[in-house]
């Protein structure tokens, strides 16, 4: 085992071993269990950061490692069976670093935030499993194993959203997340099988294991039948829409706010929702040639970003504002990827900067909620002087989200707008600029309601403990400096011959940003957004304003629509319930008759014998 292979193993073993050992250590006491989980979180973070360093700055070569997983699945002696192949390129290394790095900070934050709660063993075991699954998801090259980790991430999100098992709302939100992402998961599975079926049909059954390798598929994209690519491509989009909460499959994410705030930070910044964007980024070279594929992705991003931003503008719940803002920012990333290779660097760069400042915002919001005991922003206010750490760090995070130069959110959002400008997508670009305006407005609204102005009621504010303020400060520093990584990121991409990606230096990037017209859009959006917020009373006063506000508050009726489908299914089930007598003899007779009919059909259809 070479040192590289050891690193790959450690990155997966630390979190998974933690999942297994936390329940064992629970016998030794709460403290031991919690500190052990935090320690393993930081070990994981250290390993993935070393991997990031090796891949970004090392030889222009991916970290690969492969071992036979199911060699007996080979269809002939010349073919290879399924292998567990790890392929870590700059994108995968970045995603793993986000999952491990932010995940470890969330674990540290949880020490105080979750102190004294019931079910902490379950909590820490699942958080570690969540982080480990996400790292596994971005590391592997085999689509089937990727799907396995994809489901593991979904399972952890379900269990953690419903962490407060005694709260029916939380349990419901967990089930909602599981069911809605399931729609996407099934589509992804169909896509994977469509790819495998298409490739083996055209190249022969010996190519089954290659048909599941992302790297092989990208390298041999010309040999895949176009129809296969089209079916798989659109199925993959639906899969990513479910995981990354794109309209119309976004409804689970705001409800997922019933989870502990630390889990929200983890889902929104480090793990779950990034998976869909990652899948799209990873499979972009595969499907870019499919007609309308990139356009579909782009418009999904545009619609999602815009609708979610309007919903964030009218939401009274602090965490739900942040949730809608995540949906909106994910729309930005999808939009960037929908521009094709021109937007690839921008979209993944935005993913990185968003992960950092959104984790910061959620953890800051957690500190506020922890102190005040409510999530309703209209009951907050005037916390600026009493919660200094939370205020200043959230101010940095919020301004980064709004797009204030020189915070990381500004650079990455501007980069996406620039890519749209240079590819000549003017209509979507216009909508995205409006979205950026709304982003600035809702961020300002949030900061104003929570921190500025007069307190709306008496609060017993206690100081933020160190275990909570250290992650906040670290993430705030990250928000200020993370954008400087663009030079390394783009150079690493260029080194790996990612299509059409140009390496650029940090200075070159700054010069390009400030000299291109897109910066005018970004800054104008920020200014207009602030203006819009202060002009809100005039807007809310007229009838059109009232109407849009009430529609947006109801989430544009998506929930009502799904509720209708659910009610219809229940009615259907009730109608068919009558065929169940509840008598064992009748049920079994039905079963035997069904079996006989099946055998007869198979026999006369020529499928038997």
């Amino acid at each position, binding site marked *: 085992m070479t040192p590289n292979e050891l690193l790959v193993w450690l990155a997966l073993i630390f979190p998974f071993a933690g999942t297994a050992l936390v329940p064992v250590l629970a016998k030794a006491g709460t403290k031991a269990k919690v500190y052990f989980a935090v320690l393993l979180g930081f070990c994981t973070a250290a390993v993935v950061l070393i991997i990031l360093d090796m891949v970004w700055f090392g030889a222009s070569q991916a970290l690969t490692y492969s071992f036979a997983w199911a060699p007996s699945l080979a269809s002939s002696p010349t073919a290879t069976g399924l292998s567990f192949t790890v392929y870590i390129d700059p994108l995968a290394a970045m995603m793993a670093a986000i999952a491990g790095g932010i995940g470890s900070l969330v674990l540290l934050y949880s020490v105080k935030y979750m102190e004294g709660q019931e079910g902490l063993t379950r909590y820490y075991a699942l958080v570690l499993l969540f982080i480990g699954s996400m790292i596994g998801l971005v590391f592997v090259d085999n689509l089937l194993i990727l799907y396995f980790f994809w489901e593991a991430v979904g399972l952890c999100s379900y269990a953690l959203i419903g962490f407060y098992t005694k709260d029916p709302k939380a349990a419901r939100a967990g089930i909602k997340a599981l069911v809605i992402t399931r729609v996407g998961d099934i589509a992804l599975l169909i896509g994977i099988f469509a790819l495998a079926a298409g490739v083996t049909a055209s190249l022969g059954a010996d190519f089954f294991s290659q048909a599941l390798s992302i790297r092989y598929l990208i390298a041999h994209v010309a040999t895949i039948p176009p129809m296969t690519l089209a079916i798989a491509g659109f199925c993959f989009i639906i899969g990513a829409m479910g995981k990354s909460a794109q309209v119309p499959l976004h409804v689970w994410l705001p409800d997922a706010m019933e989870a502990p705030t630390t889990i929200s930070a983890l889902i929104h910044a480090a793990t779950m929702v990034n998976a869909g964007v990652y899948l799209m980024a990873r499979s972009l070279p595969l499907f870019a040639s499919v007609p309308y594929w990139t356009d579909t992705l782009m418009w999904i991003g545009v619609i999602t970003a815009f609708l979610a931003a309007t919903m964030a503008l009218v939401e009274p719940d602090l965490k739900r504002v942040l949730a809608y803002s995540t949906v909106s920012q994910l729309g930005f990333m999808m939009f960037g990827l929908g521009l094709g290779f021109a937007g690839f660097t921008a979209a993944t760069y935005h993913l990185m900067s968003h992960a950092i400042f959104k984790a910061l915002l959620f953890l800051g919001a957690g500190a506020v909620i922890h102190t005040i005991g409510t999530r309703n922003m209209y009951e907050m206010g005037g916390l600026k002087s009493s919660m200094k750490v939370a205020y200043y760090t959230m101010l940095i995070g919020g301004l980064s989200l709004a797009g204030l130069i020189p915070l990381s959110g500004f650079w990455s959002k501007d980069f996406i707008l620039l890519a749209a400008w240079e590819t000549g997508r003017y209509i979507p670009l216009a909508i995205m600029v409006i979205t950026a305006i709304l982003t600035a407005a809702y961020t300002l609204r949030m900061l104003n309601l929570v921190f500025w102005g007069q307190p709306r009621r008496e609060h017993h504010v206690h100081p933020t403990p160190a275990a909570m303020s250290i992650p906040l400060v670290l993430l705030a520093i990250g928000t200020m400096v993370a954008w400087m990584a663009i030079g390394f990121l783009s150079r690493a991409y260029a080194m790996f011959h990612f299509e059409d990606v140009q390496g650029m230096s940090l200075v070159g990037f700054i010069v390009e940003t400030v000299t291109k017209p897109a910066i005018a859009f970004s800054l104008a959006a920020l200014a207009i957004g602030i203006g819009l917020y202060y002009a809100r009373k005039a807007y809310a006063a007229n009838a059109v304003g009232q109407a849009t506000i009430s529609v947006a508050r109801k989430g544009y009726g998506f929930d009502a629509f799904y509720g209708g489908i659910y009610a219809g299914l229940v009615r259907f089930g009730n109608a068919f319930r009558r065929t*169940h*007598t*509840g*008598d*064992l*003899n009748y049920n*079994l*007779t039905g079963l*035997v008759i069904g079996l006989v009919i099946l055998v007869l059909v198979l026999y006369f259809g020529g499928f038997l014998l």
Partner: protein
Amino acid sequence: MVVANYIMFAVMILFLGMYCVLTKKNLIKSAIGISIMVKGASLSFLAAGGTTAQVAVVLIIVVDAIVAAILLSLAVNVYRRTGSLNIEDLRKLWG
């Protein structure tokens, strides 16, 4: 053909068990019927011959013993709760 005879006999046992499960109202009789059906299936395996079939049948016998144990323990619990073994009294499991 000896094998055909064995298979015929196995199918007869299978139908016997099936008849028992479909018509009897007593839970223990249903359990016995299920066991008889499994015996018919394993006999057809043996009739096919070969070591694999023999291994499979040994496995089936072990599993069948477990199934019978679970079914009977269910029956005991049902009797404790409802005071009878008649499966018509279990209709409330209809849901």
